[in-house]
């Protein structure tokens, strides 16, 4: 990427707004003081929320409380998050414009490409492990998706060519997470108590299915975002 002049003139050197700098500094310090005092004054932890989460974990289909919160108890958050990721990926690609298909390609490096061939299977195995282990330990769709996205971006650095995924498969992976999550959420509404309330017997497998879709979506979205940044 070529260095470019950054726009923006209203910097601290702008004489018209110079007095704003001490004002902003004082305001930030004041905010820090207020928030730090509020943090110190917090009552000792003893709310009922952590306990009720830990009590409900056996019903969620997973053992790891964080996964239970992310994908079961607060599924709304995660569905919106996946949708935000999809929106930003589509938006960034649209904003990057038509030359997104032809980014400047670095020179191919044979050593790096050979190294990548060793590294890629390890990354995929680690991503699969992280996806599976999310059920009972820290891990899950986001960590696994980040690994896969990193693999795809590394390919760009090492080989100098765009990732060899064809466009249609990338589109499919990009939308898969949101579509799968919404479908299962609405299906749960039709078959069971309500939107995103999975039946406890199936919850573990439904969560794994959603996480698999989200992993692919996150990896595809990160790749699209990186390509858009690279090519503008």
């Amino acid at each position: 990427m070529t260095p470019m002049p950054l726009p923006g003139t209203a910097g601290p050197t702008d004489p018209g707004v110079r007095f704003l700098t001490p004002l902003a500094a004082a305001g930030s310090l004041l905010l820090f003081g207020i928030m730090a005092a509020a943090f110190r004054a917090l009552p000792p932890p003893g709310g009922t929320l952590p306990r009720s989460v830990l009590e409900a974990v056996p019903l969620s289909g997973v053992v790891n409380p964080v996964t239970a919160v992310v994908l079961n108890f607060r599924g709304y958050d995660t569905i919106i998050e996946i949708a935000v990721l999809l929106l930003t990926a589509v938006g960034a690609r649209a904003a990057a414009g038509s030359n997104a298909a032809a980014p400047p390609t670095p020179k191919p490096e044979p050593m790096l490409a050979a190294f990548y061939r060793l590294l890629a299977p390890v990354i995929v195995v680690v991503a699969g492990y992280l996806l599976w282990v999310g059920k009972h330990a820290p891990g899950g769709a986001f960590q696994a998706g980040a690994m896969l996205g990193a693999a795809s971006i590394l390919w760009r650095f090492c080989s100098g060519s765009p990732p060899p995924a064809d466009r249609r498969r990338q589109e499919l992976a990009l939308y898969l997470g949101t579509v799968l999550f919404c479908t299962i959420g609405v299906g749960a509404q039709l078959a069971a108590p309500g939107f995103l309330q999975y039946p406890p017997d199936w919850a573990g497998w439904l969560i794994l299915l959603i996480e698999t879709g989200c992993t692919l979506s996150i990896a595809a979205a990160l790749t699209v975002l990186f390509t858009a940044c690279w090519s503008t």
Partner: protein
Amino acid sequence: MQPSDLYGTAGIALFTLGLYGATRLGQPMRQVLSFNVASTGASMFLIAIAHRAASPLPDPVPHAMVLTGIVVAVSATALALVLINILGRPPGPPPTPNDHGH
């Protein structure tokens, strides 16, 4: 004074520092970095909050919020970088598909 108090206060400090940078640094790139510093501070604060409880298990709800927040921060940063790149383009007609940009 527990370790979580220290981490929480440091998170608040990072958050306000990032907020100051976002309001007072004129260049968009620096503002985006400032917002990233602020969001890291917010995440740090939430994680510190999760460890205040006496139980060995941290509170999972703030952890889930941080996990969500990281992904949103990454995607928002990438979108902002694309927009900054477009702002920094030299004025003129947009590049055609045959033109390899720049």
